[in-house]
């Protein structure tokens, strides 16, 4: 066997082993809390020694956990709806007429800023600036903070969909056929960008729902989120905390699969799926 063939086989084997190991690792860390949520005692075996539903019962009965669940759902819902609205409008702006490259670049780069700055820095500054205002002490302060960190995800998603459907030309086509801007948006753009919108909304929801770093600093006392609940309960009872983690994981898994499903569905409109 030649050296090159040997190297090729070797690299193939190494990459498959890495793939397998990493997937196994991710599954392991992801599903330990899932099983743990049903454990009463789990110390020396692959699966819990004593199973229980008490952790789930705890999840459904503990007022602090329930309250945190409510807060997280509320904050994530508002964040996702508002951010998708804001970025849909921006996308409309970018594709309604010919815009110069600079306008596109400006939006693209400014949307990335929250990724460049540590969340803690933005959170701290927002806290310092808006605590004395009307926002202080309300969950809106956290909503606005989350609006910044979900920006890159929401924008990139919508932007790529808008590009894929060639939104500018679709608007032009509708207008050349006699539709005004509103009609074109309602009858042509929304039906085509719909899957992308829902996908972006789900992503924003998941990012907001899973945030701990900003919530830890910004969430007012009555609106502590689930991730804060996880943090506080973990050191008291790992299995109770696992039940809360299970909930977060269900939300993440559902969203990531829905996002994947929706983006495939959006694509199907452009490419006939041959079976």
């Amino acid at each position, binding site marked *: 066997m030649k*050296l*090159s063939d040997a190297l090729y086989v070797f690299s193939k084997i*190494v*990459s*498959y082993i*890495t*793939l397998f190991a*990493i*997937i196994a*690792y*991710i*599954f392991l*860390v*992801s599903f*330990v*809390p899932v099983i*743990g949520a049903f454990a009463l005692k789990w*110390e*020396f*075996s*692959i699966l819990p020694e004593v199973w229980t539903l008490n952790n789930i019962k705890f999840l459904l009965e503990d007022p602090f956990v329930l309250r945190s669940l409510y807060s997280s759902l509320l904050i994530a819902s508002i964040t996702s709806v508002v951010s998708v609205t804001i*970025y849909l*409008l*921006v996308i409309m*702006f970018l594709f*309604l007429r010919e815009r110069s490259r600079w306008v596109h670049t400006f*939006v693209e780069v400014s949307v990335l*800023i*929250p*990724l*460049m700055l*540590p*969340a*803690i*820095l933005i959170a*701290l500054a*927002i806290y*310092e*600036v808006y605590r004395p205002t009307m926002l202080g002490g309300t969950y809106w302060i956290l909503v606005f*903070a989350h*609006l*910044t960190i979900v*920006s890159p995800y929401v924008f990139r998603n919508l932007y790529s969909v808008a590009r894929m459907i060639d939104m500018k030309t679709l608007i032009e086509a509708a207008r050349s056929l006699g539709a005004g801007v509103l009609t074109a948006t309602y009858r042509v753009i929304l039906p085509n960008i719909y899957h992308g919108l829902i996908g972006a909304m789900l992503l924003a929801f998941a990012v907001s729902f*899973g945030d*701990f*770093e900003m919530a*830890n*600093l910004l969430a007012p006392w009555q609106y502590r989120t689930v*991730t804060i609940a*996880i*943090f506080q309960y973990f050191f008291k009872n*790992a299995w109770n*905390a*696992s039940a809360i*983690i299970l909930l*977060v994981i269900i939300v*993440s898994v559902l969203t*990531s*699969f829905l996002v994947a499903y929706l983006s*495939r569905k959006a694509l199907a409109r452009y490419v006939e799926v041959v079976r």
Partner: protein
Amino acid sequence: MVSPNTKSFLIDVLLVSPFLLLLVFFIAIPFAVSIYYSLTSGSSSSFTLSNFIQIYSSPSYLNSIQNSVVISLESAALSTLFGALLAYAFTLLSPTVRDIIRSVLLLPIIYPGLVIAFSLVILIGTSGILTNILAKYFGFYLPDVFNVRSYGGLILAYQSFLIGFTSITLSGVFLSLDKSLIEASRSLGAGVFQTIFRVVLPVIAPGLVAAFIQAFIIAISGYGTALALVGGGGNLITLRIIMLLSDVTYEPHLASALAMNIAMITIPLALIYNRLLKKVAGGVV
């Protein structure tokens, strides 16, 4: 009657103003304020470098910066290596399998880092399940060689979501790496190593750098995972910031100055990243 020009201008304003307001009020102003905070002390409003002087003259703060940078570099290097191997494996897989694996890799990206930390503690902490099993059946006590509540554990935890980012960014590069390019090089008489170093590496290098930067930025700016895993025992910049913002000590000025140290590293890197991303198709964000 509004003129058509005014009307289209009004529509434009209507469409961009929510975004601009968000940008100004929740990104620009807060960022300006944190710069201002870092350059002032709580007691007077005149500009001073005292925060930075305090940081740079304190061995413990300097050590936290060093720790953060080193750990992030190590995490980024490892995740770029693994991400590249995964991206290479992707090219060998069918698109359907690839899609499934990619959505699995996306999972930890949207998990809170906290969860990963706790999972690792449950698994291989001092009384973790795997630790117990290993001790009981093999007489091997894992924490003797690897303590998960340490910087090493942190790097391990980071891998779970950093690899998601790097592999997805790199898979675009690897998939676009034309097989015929390699064949052409081989047919021109280049050896394996020459092909790798002269043809493959230059093509994927921007992707590798982009993935590395992305992983580094995520690793150095986060604190959730670190707080859950090493807690107060770790000396990292972000953990020091959190400590400065506790109920006991609340020092936003010094905290801002510390955070500025991270921003001074991440902002230029992010700009390079954004440049590189234009050359590299795909990516999570």
